[in-house]
């Protein structure tokens, strides 16, 4: 990655809703980090005290399922944001996250950003406006995956039978 954190935040479309001044404030809470392939960023249930803007690489969100190990529920690629559990109490991660490949990101100090949001509602609103489209997009994608669009009629019947049996 080239350029200062402030410059990279300013250039990134994710924070387009923020003013220059707000982006500069946010940059004070950001730093560049790298994760090796396979490195775990956080576990489900852990304290959600960070979030990341993925600049290069990829992250897998996972959940430990008894008897099946860590099941990947979604992967995130460069250009997107990782982590919004810090926005609301209890500020605990709902999933785990692991780097799929060598990954570079801007890491933000979430409690500090939250304090800025509380102290400056305009800043907080701009931050929320940045996150809301991503949250909505992922919710819609999850709903569509729930429809199991690629299933055959017999696979759908099997699924319905399993649901009826439980």
């Amino acid at each position, binding site marked *: 990655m080239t350029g200062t954190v402030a410059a990279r935040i300013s250039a990134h479309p994710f924070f387009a809703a923020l003013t220059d001044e707000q982006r500069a404030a946010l940059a004070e809470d950001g730093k560049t980090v790298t994760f090796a392939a396979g490195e775990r960023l956080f576990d489900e249930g852990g304290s959600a005290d960070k979030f990341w803007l993925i600049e290069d690489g*990829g992250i897998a969100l996972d959940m430990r399922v008894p008897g099946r190990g860590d099941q990947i529920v*979604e*992967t995130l*690629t460069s*250009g997107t944001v990782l982590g919004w559990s810090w926005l609301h109490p209890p500020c605990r991660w709902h999933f785990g996250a692991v780097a799929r490949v060598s990954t570079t990101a801007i890491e933000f100090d979430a409690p500090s950003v939250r304090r800025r949001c509380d102290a400056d509602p305009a800043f907080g609103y701009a931050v929320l406006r940045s996150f809301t489209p991503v949250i909505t997009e992922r919710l819609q994608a999850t709903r*569509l*995956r729930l429809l199991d669009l*690629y299933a055959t*009629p017999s696979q759908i019947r099997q699924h319905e039978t399993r649901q009826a049996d439980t």
Partner: protein
Amino acid sequence: MTGLDTARPALTDPAPAVPCFYLVASRREDTGDTVTLELTEPGSLVPAFAPGQFAMLTALGVGEVPISVSGLGDSGGGRARRLQHTLRAVGAVTRALCAAQPGGLIGVRGPFGTGWDVASATGRDLVIVAGGIGLAPLRPVVLTALADRSRYGRIVLLAGTRTPGDLLYADELDRWRRAGVEVAVTVDQADSGWSGEVGLVTALIKPAGLAPGNSVAFICGPDIMMRVTADALAALGIPADRIRVSLERNMRCGAAWCGHCQLGPLLVCRDGPVVGYDRAAGLMRVREL
């Protein structure tokens, strides 16, 4: 809708309602429920197919279904001497067709409908987005572009599938990658051996770094998948008339006689299956037509 193939069956060439019988030359199992049949050596020949067009395939004594061509085939003399179809066993007819063995006979009527008109994308980037079995009708787009590679810009193939085991043409995807096709695959449900992306196919669009002003998109998959993908591409800036979708409706006669496949003003067997999104968008949102 502009620039789409207009090759349609003439009523006299040969009778669209009368099948020609093709021999199954080979049968390849692509996934647990999907096979690719190569058909050849018939007594009589149907006209050559364009990518995106479909045939009505008959399993003798069982029934008939519309299936798009999945290969370029061999079209000597303007006739289809060799055809490839990829089928998924979902009902009685497709189960019978999937079970056909080399040497067996299959009835073929066609070609029917509009094609992808790959040539109209000359000089532009091709953005090919497939959902599930939708990769089969799009395979000829990739093969056509690779056969005349210098004619096109980037070739970007984004494929979504249910599970890793449902991915079609896995070996071929690697060959396409080596030939310069930018291939990205995502699955709805990963297994322990899967190291690729997990999520909806639309999540592959942003990382692909497309050039919307110079792209033509070809989309095939379930209706909802096509709609959300086309909307995402349109939001990125690809004009709706440069986004093409392949509609699937209840095709019966194939020659726009019976009306079973009517979708508003379209008879999909004639005016589709490939339709520009500028025309299809409104129709795909109507609950009942």
